[in-house]
């Protein structure tokens, strides 16, 4: 699957619908959906929110891999920002010290089984993979 989306949160519903179709067509296990949806939304929202100098559409690519899926988001004409290098969140902090925000990329790193970032010619590309564990795969047989 290869498709571009406008730089708007309103596109999230379409991304979910396209992800649904891709999972069905490729027969990818639904147990990966929550993780893929969450990592994908957080990365897309991050691009829309912070790469405001670009008016280019964001490219989403998905492909099946052994026991899982690989997802890439590419953002054109933007500054370098590596989402894999983020500050840790103190999840033990008391309520008085917690603030809304900052959890998005933290959750991406929790959700993705692997993730890597490329930046070249003012183009940011982030790729993550989600793979069923051996136990999950065996349960599925």
């Amino acid at each position, binding site marked *: 699957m290869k498709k571009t989306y406008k730089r708007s949160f309103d596109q999230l519903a379409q991304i979910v619908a396209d992800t649904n179709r891709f999972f069905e067509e490729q027969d990818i296990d639904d147990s990966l959906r929550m993780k893929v949806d969450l990592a994908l939304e957080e990365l897309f929202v991050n691009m829309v929110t912070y790469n405001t100098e670009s008016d280019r559409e964001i490219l989403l690519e998905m492909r099946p891999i052994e026991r899982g899926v690989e997802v890439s988001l590419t953002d054109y004409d933007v500054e370098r920002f590596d989402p894999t290098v983020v500050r840790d969140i103190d*999840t*033990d*902090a008391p*309520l008085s010290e917690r*603030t*809304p925000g900052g959890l998005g990329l*933290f*959750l991406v790193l929790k959700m993705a089984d692997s993730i890597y970032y490329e930046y070249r010619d003012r183009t940011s590309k982030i790729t993550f993979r989600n793979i069923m564990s051996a136990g999950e795969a065996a349960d599925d047989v």
Partner: protein
Amino acid sequence: MFEIGFNERGDVVVSGRLDAANAPRAQAFLNEINGSCILDLSALNYISSAGLGVLLSTHKRLSADRSGLELVNVNPHINDIFRYSGFDKLFVIRSA
């Protein structure tokens, strides 16, 4: 699909997907709440950091008056997100 409203007991019921597109509507609804509040999440099937931010900001505002949000009927997937985020240490959470 996202919905937020009251049930017959006066609890707030949140259903569908609480994502970045729907978070402003959830925040506007919860901004009208005062005092202790139960959120029934039995029909919530997805939450992202935008939704977590709505819950956190509402809980902080209510807690300033010694009230707060109680999250009930939380499904295992949503509970995992709460746990990763440290929300299990901030909220009273009751699993489904």
